[in-house]
């Protein structure tokens, strides 16, 4: 029992960084970015390939982040410069990344047997296994959160937030909204690839299909985090995203423990996300249905 929870928490901390990436695009930029499905695999592929080839795991992870940022840049260029709709831009990148990721790995999957990873790096301190993953995962997630908190407090970060909030206003304030979207997508996919690199090192293999459904997992975590913890300032919002990712993993661990087929998980997650996204609208409709209609004040004023 405790083992299940510990495993879920450590895995959740690795997915937390990916959730923060999804949060950046989905909530701050107001952009549903499907690149994520390809960039998480890309992060895993780059890290696994480089570690397999004997590169230092820290360096390999850094390269994975750079790869993810490049993927985000491509999506951004497709959307802002070539004017392809946002959803489609992400899908195009995602599809292209499938081929690129196979090129990176040279085959459909790489297994890392005895190689060092960022998690074995702290074994010198006497921390190994699950605890090492948890410690490194928590440390990196906290570092990412602090970095994001700082970044979104700067002039540049505020300009990205304004772009996602109200593009017309942002341009009127002299903000180059195309550049801000590009930056936001790069940052987001860099984080997603970072997460992919950590996940691959934890499970000791990278697989071409591991990104499938990642966007929905990310959204589920974002929504769980918002519903359960999200009140108040930006720092708290970021922390609630990380908690959302961890809780999501604990829920999944329990439904599997209760006997759900792992292959049914995606259906379960998709239904959960669809329900969570639609409940506010259904509630709104229910309220208007049961309330007597009245003439709104706005109409009364206009027809004076």
């Amino acid at each position: 029992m405790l083992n299940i929870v510990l495993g879920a928490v450590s895995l959740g901390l690795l997915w937390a960084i990916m959730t923060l990436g999804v949060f950046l695009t989905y909530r701050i930029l107001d952009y549903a970015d499907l690149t994520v499905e390809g960039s998480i695999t890309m992060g895993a592929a780059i890290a696994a390939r480089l570690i397999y080839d004997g590169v230092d795991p820290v360096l390999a992870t850094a390269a994975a982040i750079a790869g993810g940022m490049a993927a985000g840049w491509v999506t951004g260029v497709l959307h802002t410069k070539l004017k392809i709709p946002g959803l489609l831009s992400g899908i195009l990148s995602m599809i292209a990344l499938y081929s690129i990721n196979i090129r990176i790995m040279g085959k459909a999957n790489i297994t890392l047997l005895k190689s060092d990873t960022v998690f074995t790096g702290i074994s010198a301190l006497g921390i190994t296994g699950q605890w090492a993953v948890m410690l490194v995962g928590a440390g990196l997630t906290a570092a990412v959160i602090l970095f994001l908190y700082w970044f979104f407090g700067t002039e540049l970060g505020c300009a990205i937030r304004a772009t996602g909030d109200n593009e017309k206003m942002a341009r009127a304030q002299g903000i180059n909204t195309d550049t801000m979207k590009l930056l936001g997508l790069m940052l987001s996919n860099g984080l997603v690839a970072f997460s992919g690199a950590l996940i691959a090192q934890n499970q000791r293999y990278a697989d071409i299909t591991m990104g499938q459904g990642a966007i929905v997992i990310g959204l589920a975590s974002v929504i769980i985090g918002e519903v359960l913890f999200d009140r108040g300032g930006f720092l708290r919002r970021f922390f609630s995203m990380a908690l959302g990712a961890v809780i999501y993993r604990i829920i999944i661990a329990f439904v599997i423990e209760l006997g759900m087929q792992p292959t049914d998980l995606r259906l379960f997650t998709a239904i959960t996300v669809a329900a969570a996204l639609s409940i506010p609208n259904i509630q709104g409709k229910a309220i208007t249905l049961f309330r007597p209609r009245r003439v709104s004040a706005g109409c009364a004023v206009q027809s004076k």
Partner: protein
Amino acid sequence: MTDMLQITNLHKTFNPGTPNENHVLKGVSLTLKEGDYVTVIGGNGAGKSTLLNSIAGTIGVDSGEIRIDSVDVTRLPEHKRAGLLGRVFQDPMQGTAAKMSVSENLALAARRGKHRGLRWGLPKGENQEFIKALEMLGLGLERRLDDKIGLLSGGQRQAITLIMATMQKPKLLLLDEHTAALDPKTAAKVLDITDQVVNQSQLTTLMITHNMNDAIRHGNRLIMMDEGRIILDIQGEEKKKLTVDQLLKLFAQAGGENALSDRMLLHN
């Protein structure tokens, strides 16, 4: 007095070469002196908003030239002109970022047209300036610096947008029917604030309105547009003595009777 805005022979056609082709600006030329406060009226489709949007760079023009304070901005993208311009839109939701706080919005505006780097976006000391600017409105907004803008009413948001448009003195203030979406009492209040802000900093201003009374009462110059052209330009003593009836007659003489929209007449 220098010329703050020089527009020469501006043309704009929407959807050229299609059945929906619409020649909206047909050679508009207009010069504003520094400190001019010009009201713009005209029926639907007269080209008022298109004129403002081409000055702001929201839409590109087909031919002609736009100079702001002698700088040719005709081909400059919108965000690069923003440093020269202050803008308030018709929809109160469009001038501010709803999910950001009042002070964050003001901080964004304080950096309009400037380089945005990795310095802190909202230094503590800046709030004092913001409080001073908001107190001038007399709406009590100085006590709501940390509230999300989305919690404020349309009138309050429009007033804040005005402050944002002018806290860094713009070369030209563009107001696109900025009171049209407000109830009459709030609209009057926002217009008062507009006059106050414009007079205080002697701002060169172009204000579109659909209300003839407002167009007469505010500013030192009135222009009327019809079918993509400026058909009337009244200023000085002549404008001060103007009445709505005279304006309607002048409009008819200038050949614009068919373009008088119901909306314009209803509001008088």
